[in-house]
């Protein structure tokens, strides 16, 4: 099965051997150089927020505030950027992407993905004998806050940032494999944890594939939501 190539500007599928997009008239192999610079700048802006959150937690701010304000600032930057560059993401929000079966498959894949991630994290904890504090533990057991900053917000703004803005900007400038690699690396690195690169890069690639396959943002947002919900439930009920 081969992936149909889609227009990075409007998201419509290119007809075989077409030199132009039938929907918007954009050249199929047009090279734009500003996409890489835009992606780097957006990443640095998001990294700046993460660094400020890290400083806040280092000087003794309560984790609940660090998580809440940090998530809010990340979301604000992402949504403000998307408002200015809505052409990069708007077409992908007009499509549902998959039918019910597609979403069901994404839902079925979520426990498998979560089990692989949990096995890796447990393996690390056993190998080094250092247990990482869970989200709920850091948030003082506040399930409502954890639900907001872990389950609801990240699928919205992280998908918009990495599979929306960065993916859309890079798709105009570099090859598809490079879009996958750069956006997935950036997604993984923004979590500020070297060990988690091994789990978040494959996760980023999976979300990119969903976005590419469907031509829509919703399947990757749904997959991200399912994964993060699984992480929270696993912690809440002690499954992992």
């Amino acid at each position, binding site marked *: 099965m081969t992936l149909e190539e889609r227009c990075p500007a409007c998201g419509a599928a290119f007809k075989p051997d077409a030199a132009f997009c039938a929907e918007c008239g954009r050249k199929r192999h047009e090279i734009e150089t500003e996409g890489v610079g835009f992606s*780097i700048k957006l*990443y*640095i802006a998001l990294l700046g927020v993460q*660094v400020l959150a890290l400083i806040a937690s280092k000087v003794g701010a309560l984790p609940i505030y660090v998580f809440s304000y940090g998530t809010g600032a990340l979301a604000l930057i992402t949504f403000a950027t998307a408002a200015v560059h809505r052409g990069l993401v708007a077409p992908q929000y007009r499509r549902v992407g998959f039918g019910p079966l597609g979403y069901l498959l994404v839902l079925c894949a979520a426990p498998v993905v979560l089990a692989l991630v949990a096995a890796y994290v447990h393996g690390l904890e056993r190998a080094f004998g250092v247990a990482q504090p869970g989200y709920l533990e850091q948030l003082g057991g506040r399930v409502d806050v954890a639900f907001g900053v872990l389950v609801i917000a990240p699928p919205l703004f992280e998908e918009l940032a990495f599979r929306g803005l960065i993916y859309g900007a890079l798709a105009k400038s*570099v090859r598809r494999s*490079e879009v996958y690699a750069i956006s997935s690396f950036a997604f993984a690195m923004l979590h500020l944890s070297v060990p988690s690169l091994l789990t978040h890069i494959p996760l980023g690639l999976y979300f990119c594939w969903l976005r590419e396959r469907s031509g829509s943002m919703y399947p990757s947002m749904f997959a991200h939501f399912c994964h993060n919900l699984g992480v929270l439930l696993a912690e809440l009920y002690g499954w992992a």
Partner: protein
Amino acid sequence: MTWAQVQAHDRGLVTQQLAINLGLAAVFLGLWFWAKKNVLAASVVALLLFITVVAINGVLEPGTLYQGIIVKIFFVAALVKAISAAQQERKLAA
């Protein structure tokens, strides 16, 4: 927590830190190999990773920000130059 457990925990932290640094070295080595085939993508990833690592280290140990600052600036400049050159090459080839 007993003294033996504290010692084991500290040893675990040290080993973890060593593993993280070795992992980073492995990632940069991988990027070096990747850059031979694909300069643009490898340089972008290397730049993002380098900036991230410097920023995190700067927060955790502020003194490291000034350590080797000339080399850090040189690395960033070289990576930006590599990205720019790779983009120019793409444009000319298109």
